[in-house]
């Protein structure tokens, strides 16, 4: 569980027609209850707008004929959703046991160092929110829990790509794949 701010920076949003079409398609996957589409809609929203602000919460609630609280309580519960901007490239380093045994804490700190993100916040347990973003706003680094790749530890998920057996020396090469 994470606690987060109760209000957010509102982005001025217009929902493009193709995004809304994707949402309608998602809603059609749940013939029994529209409410089931709340997670898929939140994913689509965050993928498009970067984060979920109060405007997004209200918009999705209206779309699904729910109260805003029905959506907000999901945003504040699920670690994946965020209420503030992250970097364009999100680096998620696995914190859990097998990866920790393979040095994932050092790995996370090395990513931070390479991206000029301060690491003094990085206690063992501060994964999740808030995300730390590089000064140029391009990258953010966070700890996540077991990514189900413990046999090739340490691992990290960068945007949609899983990187396995990551060594600290490979960081420059990996980051070069995600140049702005």
């Amino acid at each position, binding site marked *: *569980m994470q606690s987060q701010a109760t209000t957010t920076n509102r982005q001025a949003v217009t929902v493009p027609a193709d995004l809304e079409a994707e949402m309608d398609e998602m809603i059609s*996957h*749940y*013939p*029994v*209850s529209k*409410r*089931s*589409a*709340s*997670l*898929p809609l*939140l*994913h689509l929203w965050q993928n498009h707008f970067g984060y979920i602000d109060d405007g997004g919460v209200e918009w999705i609630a209206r779309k*699904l004929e729910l109260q805003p609280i*029905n959506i907000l*309580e*999901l945003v504040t*519960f*699920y*670690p*994946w*959703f965020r209420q503030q901007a992250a970097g364009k490239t999100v680096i*998620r380093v696995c*914190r*859990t*046991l*097998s990866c*920790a*045994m*393979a*040095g994932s804490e050092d790995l996370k700190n090395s990513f931070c160092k390479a991206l000029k993100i301060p690491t003094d916040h990085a206690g*063992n*347990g501060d*994964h*999740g929110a808030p995300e730390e973003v590089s000064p140029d706003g391009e990258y953010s680094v966070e700890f*996540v*829990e*077991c*990514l*189900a*790749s*413990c*046999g*090739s*530890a340490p691992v990290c*998920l960068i945007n*949609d790509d*899983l990187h396995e057996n990551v060594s600290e020396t490979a960081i420059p090469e990996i980051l070069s794949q995600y140049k702005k």
Partner: protein
Amino acid sequence: MISLTRPPHPKERRVIFENIFKPGYAPDIDTYISHGGYEQARKAFTMTPEEIINIVKASNLRGRGGAAFPTGVKWSFIKREDGKPHYIVVNGDESEPGTFKDRYILHNDPHQLIEGLIISAFAVNVQLAYIYIRCEFPKAAKIMTQAIKEAKERGFLGKNIFGSGFDLDIYVHQGAGAYICGEETSLLESLEGKRPYPRIKPPYFPAVLGLYMSPTVVNNVETICHVKHILRLGAEEYAKMGSPGDGGTRTLCVSGDVMNPGFYELPAGAVTLKELIYDICGGLKPGRKLKAVIPGGSSAKVMRAEEVYKVKTKAEDGTMVEKELAMLDVVMDANSLAAVGTMIGSGGVIVMDDTRSMVWTLNNLNLFYAHESCGQCTPCREGSLWMAKMTTRMLHGGGVATDPDTLKNVADNIAGRTVCAFGEACAWPTQSFVIKFRDEFAQTAQNGPSAPAKV
């Protein structure tokens, strides 16, 4: 596609992972069909649903998601003709630390899951099924969605599949980064679009009041895949592959301090822990000694290297005798691990050598559980956090002599007092680590940590 190049170990018996490793094997439907795909689904429609359920029962298939519940029995709780809608939800949340098998199926062999699901849906009379995939597998969701589309185009899904008059639609549902959604009732709440607080059982057994309060089967990804192979091999041959009461193959995922970590598909009960670590996984790193093993995902109780268990076995004359069993001689199947007080769980085996601090190890797990508790029950929400704070404090040299007792006391007051089995899952590591490594915990509490091991 995740590349997998390791050839099978001679002891392995690849059933689920038979094709995934083959060069050129791709997740598209034509590749799957050219490897005999969808023949079993076709065959299923020549059988009656009761026949299928009976075969699955006779196969001794037990769930691969953690609780090792007999799958055929679970299915027979659903009354096929009760006039209510039924659902199957496939659990692809795979988030128990140490477990990494379903991800390969979802990414590399999606049609195997769809075929298993068609057969299962026919058996329990389901027209709408969901595959719940954790969102940390974004590519798997795309691959599965594409595979469903392909199957629909061929008439294997949708209306009147294989011309049988039976309809089935499958959709993918993505999670959002919460471990608790792997618990089946939390998963259903999540699928209903609500905060995924687990439901209390009774009355909310999924088979009775599941998705949308209708009878629902929740099965793990690997479990559903096995169904296809039970039809292919027949119940008897499938059961024979495994050990008594635990049929077929089990995929063991080994990580931590072994030379060759990875996943190994073995007949259930085919190897002892010693054979698994030393023969199959190439042993420990040079110069290291075995210290501890977590045998079935992070929630399973830890086993200590020199431990000797007393187990009851049946002698030839039928009387029960007590036997001593060394930790390394424990057989890796559901019943044998249960007999020594731990569990096969999700098959995630985490190996630790003598460079590892047990307080550090437990602290890592405690932080996991503290972060992942849904917060609904006080003993779990407060207890998991309290245990994590204590082990963290011990690691920073702030321990006090009573810490080991307090830790165990907190854990004892969580297990059995919560809505869902997460309570046990977060208590068992602390209980077992503190009991089995008592001296080390006492030492760390009093003298601070010995230098934490680095690789």
